[in-house]
């Protein structure tokens, strides 16, 4: 009997985890303790993420109030169909992720591998759509920075009769209320919107990529467990990645209406 078990037996009469030898970290007494620690840790990390991204959402909200007309016109450049498709894709990936967690808990390694692969697939579809969206922005010179040019937004808005060039060169923005801005102001403020778009979706995409990497590792581990016909494996990694993955989805659930839908 190892020292670790001796310590546990000393105070806990029912060490249900003896078959979990090799899973329990050296610093923990019981598997319960370890699992709870991981869960609290993951939730604390998610809280941290909420504040990290929350600051950008707050800034976005403030500027949307301040530059309502410019932001509304700029957001019409976003493709709500592709965004909506991506929402569905991510929701589907959340479903398969939940099934993967369930399979891991039941030690059904084959099924776990299958569902994780589906999750990975959906995530790739999401990233592919993102790539299409981004390259369209590039074609229209809508990437913030030196090459940024608002003329596409102006043309589209003019076409929809939401923007009217005035004889003095300024623009009149016509929503429910009207507002007159200089071309330079219009450029800066629409660029600010696209800046928020790229920062938010970029950070979100980064999170998706991190998630995909970890899910890839989990697929490999599930495959090994499956080949070895391991009766019991630690399901906590899948559970934790699942939590993370659902969080990344929820961030998108906030991004989609705030950037793509409001004011359409």
């Amino acid at each position, binding site marked *: 009997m190892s020292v670790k078990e001796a*310590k546990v037996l*000393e*105070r806990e009469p029912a060490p249900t985890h003896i078959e979990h030898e090799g899973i329990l*970290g*050296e*610093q*923990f*007494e019981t598997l319960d*303790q370890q699992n*709870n*620690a991981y869960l*609290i*840790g993951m939730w*604390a*990390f998610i*809280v*941290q*993420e909420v*504040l*990290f*991204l*929350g*600051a*950008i959402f*707050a*800034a976005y909200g*403030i*500027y949307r109030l*301040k*530059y309502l007309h410019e932001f509304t016109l700029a957001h019409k450049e976003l493709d709500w169909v592709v965004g909506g498709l991506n929402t569905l894709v991510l929701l589907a990936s959340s479903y398969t992720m939940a099934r993967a967690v369930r399979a891991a808990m039941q030690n059904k390694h084959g099924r776990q591998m299958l569902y994780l692969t589906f999750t990975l697939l959906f995530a790739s579809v999401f990233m592919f759509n993102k790539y299409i969206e981004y390259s369209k922005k590039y074609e229209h010179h809508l990437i*913030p*920075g*030196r090459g940024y040019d608002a003329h596409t937004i102006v043309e589209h808005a003019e076409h929809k009769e939401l923007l009217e060039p005035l004889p003095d060169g300024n623009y009149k923005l016509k929503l429910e209320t009207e507002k007159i801005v200089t071309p330079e*102001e219009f450029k*800066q*403020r629409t*660029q*600010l919107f696209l*800046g928020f778009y790229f*920062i938010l979706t970029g950070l979100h995409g980064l999170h998706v990529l991190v998630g995909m990497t970890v899910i890839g590792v989990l697929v490999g581990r599930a495959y090994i467990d499956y080949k070895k016909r391991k009766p019991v494996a630690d399901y906590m990694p899948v559970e934790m990645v699942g939590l993370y993955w659902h969080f990344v989805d929820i961030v998108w659930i906030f991004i989609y209406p705030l950037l793509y839908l409001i004011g359409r």
Partner: protein
Amino acid sequence: MAMQTVAQSESKQINYLNWKTTVASWLLTYDHKRIGILYLISISLFFLLGGLAAALIRLELATPKGDLLTSDVYNKMFTIHGVLMIFFFLIPSIPAVFGNFVLPLMIGARDVAFPRLNLLSWYFFMAGAFLATVALLRGGIDTGWTFYTPYSSSFAKGEVSLAIMGVFLAGFSSIFTGINFLVTIHKMRAPGMTWFRLPLFVWAMYATSLIQVLGTPVVAITLLLVAIERSLRIGIFDPQLGGDPILYQHLFWFYSHPAVYIMILPGMGVISEVISAFSKKRVFGYHFVAFSSLAIAIIGFLVWGHHMFSSGQSIYAGLLFSFLSFLVAIPSAIKTFNWMTTIWKGRVHWEAPMVYALGFMGLFVIGGLTGLHLGALATNLHLTDTYFVVAHFHYVMVGGAIMAYLAALHYWWPKMTGRMYPQSWAKLSALLVFVGFNLTFFPQFILGYLGMPRRYHSYPEEWAALNLLSSAGASVLGFGYIIPVIYLVWSLKYGRIVTERNPWGARGLEWELVETPPDPHNFERTPIVTRPAYDYGHPEEPTGFVPKPRPVVVGGKDG
């Protein structure tokens, strides 16, 4: 001398320092004690660098004319001083060094909940420190540690973005430490170690971790936005580009005010430990002291606007923030009064940590009370951006946090190293720090009241005398900091060897059940706690814990 050699040969027992000695065993260690030591060494380096910058600043200000440094170099100096001292010394100081070293020992755990994350956080810290150092070496930056926009995003020359990335990484190091300690305190406590049996240092660390997890991400993303604005010219904070600099200040102080409590709360926890250990008395009003830590952390999130009274924030917001700022005084006062009543009728032992702790109390009270002058709207308008502010926050951060850090260092030094430093030198240096500190910063209160503004390298003749006094005090203070460095390093080789577990006769798992220096696995077996913390009422029973059989250990005092 002969006694020492005998003790040395007997103390061949395995401890966390000698069980593996390769460089890799240190750089890849998961042991919370070793990670604490890694932090201790790295932040000491940044403390010395930041102190050097401070010395140059005070040297320049010794005379009214700007004769030593040009205004440009002077700006870079106070930026180096601020960035290094705040992000790379004060914020990791007590949490990362002593939180890592003693927190698991205090709660009876073998390690923190996530040892690998713990090591990762040190690497994040070092990576951030590396980037910041490169930025400073490549010509430095002159934005001040606050990186105020639009100066930092549109005008400042130099490697601002690199320094920002350094702070960003250090911020995530802090977040990881916070998450780790939160989970450790929740899940790793030994059986019987209930919430109200926790030492108050643990309560303080819990409150600190909350701030680290809830506050730091906001400043991280804010600084990232500054770097993005700098490189892409998106108008997030620069009004010329359509942005709002006040928004930057809101987001920045939303973290950076609570960050002040990241610096002072662990210090308050240390003072509770030290005062109790050297008064041989339970901390008076344990529950009040514990909850006052949480109160400070929570109220601390609601007061950031008091940094912006003169920034164009609405007067009603100012009123509210002023009122909330005054509330912080209540839990702080609860702590101070409870420490005083702890000493009252205790058996006070005048060892070095106690002298440092008393120094903390004196300086912290002045720092805290002058905070009320700044929190009041009317006086703030007169004092804002003057040396009064400089003196106030140095009283809290240097007089408070660093005094507490030194108290902690002297208190746990024998446990960490197995060596004792010379007490008389330690007490002398505590006295020097106290006197030198007051000489340096008290004149600055007067200067600020007279209207001397911050961040200038020259000033009118009429303020020469007080500035000279301040610079003279700084040299005394410098000696006060150098002496401990010398005798502590000296003690590693020549100090009296400590083999007994509890050289101070203190209460707490880390003193009563852990070897000196600690075993790699901390405890022989997981302890079972049956008594409250600071159980000093039973002189006939040396430990506050269930006596349990344990194997004979070679090298103990009675071994």
